[in-house]
């Protein structure tokens, strides 16, 4: 069996979603042969301490993987620096790795897809990350199992250590970016929310880590390879109250799987205009307005 890439799992205080996440990872046949490295962030106060302790005792009893390493943070890193430091630590120890957060549910082909694509695109300098999350419908006559986009994704992704070593995690570009409206506009080409996100992150209003990787990708004109089938869903939207019953099942319908023996990966960079259109449309102002309007109607009918 070929070498499988290790899985980095980031978690904080949500035990219910973490359990579901781990169970879904175990549905992948590759899990038992994969190393799992868990980065467990520390609590900020007394109330969180209980939850974090529960998480850590759950982690210690877990099995179903080739090996499990637990990296307990001794103080609170925050969601951004837990992941950023985690990526740095993974880069030092492994050649490539898969990143999962505790609120995700993955399909049973998730690890197979990631490992295959990690091997296939290893030598492609322009492919910065891989994504198993996808919301774009496959266009007719587009027969590849992946497509390329110039935007990273943080829900179920993977990368290579040598491609991560130059990423500017500390955002030394602050002044340059905030005064450069042209760059802000071009940065929005693959999603109209990006410049605003970066701006907020630069001004420390929000703690986003992925926008930093996104900006690096944008500056270098690198790409992300997305799975054409959606292999990941986010379980994090239903809060503590709305737990189990709705959670797992509601999103399950969106999980897709590949049925062929192996994946069809293009051996050159292809950029499909139809996919790009739908990719951007999802984050566009119009679509957000329509969503908001539909929600409003729905609310009134109740």
């Amino acid at each position, binding site marked *: 069996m070929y070498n499988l890439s290790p899985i980095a799992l980031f978690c904080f205080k949500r035990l219910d979603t973490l359990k579901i996440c781990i169970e879904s990872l175990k549905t992948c046949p590759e899990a038992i042969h994969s190393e799992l490295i868990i980065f467990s962030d520390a609590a900020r106060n007394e109330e969180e301490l209980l939850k974090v302790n529960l998480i850590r005792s759950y982690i210690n009893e877990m099995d179903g993987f080739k090996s499990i390493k637990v990296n307990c943070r001794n103080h609170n890193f925050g969601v951004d620096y837990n992941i950023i430091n985690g990526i740095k630590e993974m880069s030092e120890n492994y050649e490539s790795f898969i990143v999962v957060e505790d609120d995700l549910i993955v399909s049973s082909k998730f690890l197979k897809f990631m490992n295959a694509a990690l091997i296939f695109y290893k030598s492609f300098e322009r492919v910065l990350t891989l994504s198993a999350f996808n919301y774009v419908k496959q266009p007719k006559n587009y027969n590849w199992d992946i497509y390329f986009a110039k935007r990273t994704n943080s829900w179920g992704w993977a990368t290579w250590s040598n491609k991560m070593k130059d990423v500017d995690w500390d955002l030394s570009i602050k002044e340059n970016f905030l005064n450069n409206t042209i760059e802000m506009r071009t940065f929005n080409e693959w999603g109209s929310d990006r410049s605003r996100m970066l701006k907020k992150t630069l001004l420390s209003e929000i703690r986003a880590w992925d926008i930093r990787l996104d900006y690096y990708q944008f500056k270098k004109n690198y790409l992300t390879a997305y799975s054409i089938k959606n292999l990941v869903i986010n379980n994090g939207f239903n809060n503590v109250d709305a737990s189990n019953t709705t959670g797992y099942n509601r999103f399950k319908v969106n999980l897709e799987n590949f049925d062929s023996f192996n994946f069809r990966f293009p051996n050159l960079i*292809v950029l499909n*205009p139809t996919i790009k259109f739908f990719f951007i449309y999802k984050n566009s102002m119009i679509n957000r307005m329509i969503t908001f309007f539909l929600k409003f109607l729905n609310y009134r009918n109740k």
Partner: protein
Amino acid sequence: MINLAPVILFTYLKIDPLRKTVQSLSDNFLATDTNLIIFSDGPKNINEVDRINEIRTYLKSIEGFNSVIIHEFSYNLGLSNSIIQNVTEVFKSYPSAIILEDDIITSKNFLSFMNQALNFYQNDSKILSISGYSPSIKGLETNEVYFTQRSSSWGWACWADRWSSIDWGCSQYEDFKYNRKLKKQFNRMGSDMSYMLKKQMQGYLDSWAIRFCFHQFNNNLFSVVPAISKTSNIGFNDINATNTINQFNRFKTILDNSNNEIYNFKSNITLEYKIIKKFRRNNSLFVRFIFKIISFLFES
């Protein structure tokens, strides 16, 4: 006797055309001295397993060559990947090779022509490939050759050193995409070429050949083409249909049955406009349109 180039044959699912291809190849004058290397692509899904097994049973029964080496893949590479990957692999041990797909029948002097051409143009770095297929072109001597800038994928040959320099990622496409002049020039060898490249780069098409041609265009390289075709594509009539449809095939050509083995290779490489005009006729908009109508009228 000079060392003969090996023949690389790519197969996937189609058994009937494959039989004809192998039969016609083994009828070649040089077949018994030629090494045959077969790459059998694997099944895409569970439904294709039986057909692939049938192909592989047949492959083991092939005779009439100096040696037959069969490489079987348990998973599906796709033709484009398979050719790029496996030809590269073969070129590690051979300086040149002749490449066939499973739906190309060849004339008896196909191998003679290819080997002689490979030998003649070995040191001429302006030649990228040798083409076995040629559309019917009138006004040329039967043993003559001409030059084009469009490689054919229906029975062709290449050298290891030329092959290794090809940029399969088409990194020059970014500049090409918005340049009308370049696109027009690229279309000089057939009005479908820019369109095919575009479809390739958008992911609607998976063709190694258009990338091969794009490399050829960017580096101003030539292909050697015989006056009379040494190959014919039988892949247009699919699974059930027999030869009948072939009469409406615009790529139909006259296969060389002269058994001639002496060719007049030219060393000054030029594009002759008159010949190019005839060469690209099959891919012109007008001919494509006419054949669309004919096939619509007679095949439905």
